[in-house]
């Protein structure tokens, strides 16, 4: 793989490189708090809700929690993966519909499932550079209210029709129309270059890393159990605002058991020859929802008498060549994390909370397996051996996407706010600030990862 040699950072190289950005005299960007609406399974409570309405609601809940009415925020960035063309200015429109000052600028960003985390990293960097003092990052997605496009054939005909000047010209254009052109073009999660769905791609990776059905079901079970326990403890009381009658994520099954999960039939990887292991229980369903995160400089947070939960330390993006089968579609974080750790002089042992987005249970387990693999560490990461293994009790301790659901662009905001609160509650570990790692895989073979630290 061409980029591993250039970008993966070996131990020698890391000592030669400058210290992490946080140590280079930049000011800190802190997470003040977050707000999201409960996530709803597609076709459920939010079937009639638009992205703009959900994002505006999530913003208004954040404004209410932190008293930001009429406040001019430095910048708001959010995005959606499934986006109507009319929503070209989605985030700015949500800001205008919210209780924020109308003088708050905003922009849309899109990096598939990494959208939410990338808005946090981009805005944090602006804060650290002193370009802005406050920011709101976020994301929203609705698979219920997804855009449906007209077919390419019909689109060309309509555009040509608009350009035609005379009646004969118009008739000639119309005569090109065929019945199949009238079929609408619905969005799907298939990769344009392989035609495979995300689930089928992951099934290849799951099989490659020999991840068992039992291990995947156990991860899904823990996700539901942990998320339900966090709700019961009131952990989400200041992270979430109800919406359309939901006050918890509708995908959460507090009473699920390993036995129940074991009864589900596989849905992906049924034609691979190997045993199919991926079910609806250990894969995330399509989900609707929105999330927001309030970021600020320490000075701004203090001046506004607002809490400072955690600092955004550093982030890293990676991509893999899944098209030619070199790596699995969702394996980019396996490369991004070692690079990020090395740049910050850290190892997996220095992390107190791992937030690894559960696109599929197999994704998390394949990534962990890769890090534990000697050969992968040597040949792909340029290390002397395996990157290492993690203490599973530190993984997704308040649940993750398998239980909460995964409205693509909203997942990053959910994880950042959740982790920041956990870090704040944890405080210090062995005389240093508690540290958390976020890892999010994304379509197109991409991944974005980040480190947060308690203050």
């Amino acid at each position, binding site marked *: 793989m061409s980029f591993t040699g250039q970008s993966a950072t070996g131990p020698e190289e890391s000592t030669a490189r400058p210290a992490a950005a946080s140590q280079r005299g930049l000011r800190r960007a802190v997470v003040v708090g977050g707000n999201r609406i409960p996530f709803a399974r597609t076709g459920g409570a939010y079937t009639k809700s638009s992205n703009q309405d959900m994002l505006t609601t999530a913003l208004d*809940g954040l404004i209410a929690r932190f008293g930001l*009415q009429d406040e001019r925020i430095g910048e708001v960035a959010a995005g959606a993966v499934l986006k109507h063309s009319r929503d070209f200015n989605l985030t700015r429109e949500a800001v205008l519909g919210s209780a924020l000052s109308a003088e708050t600028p905003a922009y849309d960003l899109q990096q598939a499932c990494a959208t939410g985390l990338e808005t946090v990293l981009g805005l944090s960097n602006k804060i650290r550079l002193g370009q802005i003092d406050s920011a709101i990052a976020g994301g929203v997605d609705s698979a219920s209210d997804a855009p449906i496009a007209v077919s390419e054939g019909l689109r060309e005909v309509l555009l040509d029709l608009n350009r035609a000047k005379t009646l004969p010209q118009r008739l000639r254009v119309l005569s090109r129309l065929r019945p199949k052109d009238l079929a609408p073009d619905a969005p799907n999660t298939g990769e344009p270059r392989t035609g495979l769905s995300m689930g089928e791609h992951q099934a290849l990776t799951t099989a490659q890393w020999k991840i068992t059905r039992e291990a995947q079901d156990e991860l899904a079970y823990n996700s539901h159990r942990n998320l339900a326990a966090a709700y019961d403890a009131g952990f989400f009381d200041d992270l979430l605002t*109800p919406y359309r009658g939901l006050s918890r994520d509708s995908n959460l099954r507090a009473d699920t058991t390993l036995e129940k999960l074991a009864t589900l039939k596989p849905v992906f990887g049924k034609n691979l020859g190997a045993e199919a292991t991926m079910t609806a229980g250990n894969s995330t369903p399509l989900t609707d929802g929105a999330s927001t995160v309030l970021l600020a400089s320490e000075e701004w947070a203090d001046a506004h008498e607002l809490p400072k939960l955690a600092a955004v330390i550093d982030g890293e993006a990676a991509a893999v060549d899944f098209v030619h089968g070199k790596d699995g579609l969702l394996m980019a974080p396996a490369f991004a994390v070692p690079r990020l750790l090395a740049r910050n002089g850290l190892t997996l042992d220095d992390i107190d909370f791992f937030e690894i987005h559960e696109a599929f249970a197999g994704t998390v387990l394949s990534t962990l397996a890769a890090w534990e693999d000697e050969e992968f560490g040597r040949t792909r990461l340029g290390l002397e051996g395996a990157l290492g293994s993690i203490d599973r009790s530190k993984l997704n301790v308040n649940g993750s996407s398998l239980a909460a659901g995964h409205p693509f662009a909203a997942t990053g905001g959910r994880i950042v706010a959740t982790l920041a609160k956990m870090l704040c509650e944890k405080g210090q570990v062995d005389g240093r600030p508690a540290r958390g790692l976020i890892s999010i895989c994304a379509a197109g073979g991409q991944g974005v990862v980040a480190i947060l630290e308690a203050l």
Partner: protein
Amino acid sequence: MTDKYTQFVSRGIGKDVARKLGLPQPAVLRRYQPGQPLVPGPVLVQGTSTGADELAPALLSWDLDVRRHAVPREKLGAIILVLDELDGPEDLERPVLAAAASVRDLATGARVVTVSLTPASAPGPAAAAARQGVDGLLRSLAKELRAGATANGIMLADGVTTTSPSTLAALRFFLSGRSAFVDGQLLTVTSDEGKLPADPEKPLAGKVAVVTGAARGIGAAIARTLHRDGAILVVVDVPAAGDHLAAVANEVKGTALQLDITREDAGRRIIDHAVARHGRLDIVVHNAGITRDKLLANMDQGRWSSVIGVNIEAQLRINEALLASEHFRKSPRIVSVASTSGIAGNRGQTNYAASKGGVMGMVRATAPLLADHHGSINAVAPGFIETEMTARIPFATREIARRLNSLQQGGQPGDVAEAIAFLASDAAGGISGEVLRVCGQNLVGA
């Protein structure tokens, strides 16, 4: 805002029909709007005592047109009947009959306010009889007034004069549109405490106020009214009501705190939030409450314990935290929402009435505990109020319930909020341990 029947009989053909058929003719009440005159006409101060002589000039500073003698056939905005020198029942006759001559001249939405001394501190049986007599007189007069006019009384405890801060504050409240749905009530000024506001339109300027159960109904109205009067708001409700709560918080430009008040640490979390976000805590309004109605014979443990838990136990626990906190010591104010059910009882509401009776008991017993810090605690007991909750009562029952008071209509959530805002103000510091009813003088249960 006013119910449809009241609108119908207030003008045109509806007015004629109602009069000919002898149907109730509720008036459209005079409600407070910032900037409006305090009363709809001149104020007659009736009484010859020193207290009356001292009170009249104090009223001039409110830009009122004050009369010491009635001008025949002049429409009056209010009659203030000062009865603070009664040695026996015979002393009632002269001032009362003098005022009687002016009752017909009261304007629409006018006010009668008596100022007298509490019977409890009377020097002997004759004086006590006269003072208690004011109570019966006032309540009866309230039932005789028409066209949205109300009558209320202020009773002065030992050491309180007609110009004490809270006497003037109570008088201003009763004269204004803020007391639109308060009728036939006597409020005791218990001490000389209290401080009149720099700006009477912003009596809560700079105060940080917490309102529980603020997501909707009366709680949301309280938040809006306190905000209008200048307070900075922390609105509290259960996490499941968070969407409505966020809307209220954004409307009143405050902060939302999603919190179940029955949690063990609710008091600490409320104090922490107010102090961390707003630097202080001055006012706590215990409004959150639930009903789980059932005849006592059919009552179950769940209905009983949940109502007692939310409506009174949570308030007691939160008050304990407030009383122990160093952040709640600068003339703090607590106002609890009780209910006329807790006074007169209500079929099917043994649990609710027990909890609301409990609130009144708590308020009385907590007042001395706050006195050291110039604090006060009071309760407001609403009668029939037009809310989403009462809108669900079947039509006939609701129609009877809302007409059974001297004003022949239900109150608005804002009417309850006005009474709470008044008791939460610095000026009301001399009123503590009291219960003020906002019920339009409910005919049942005194």
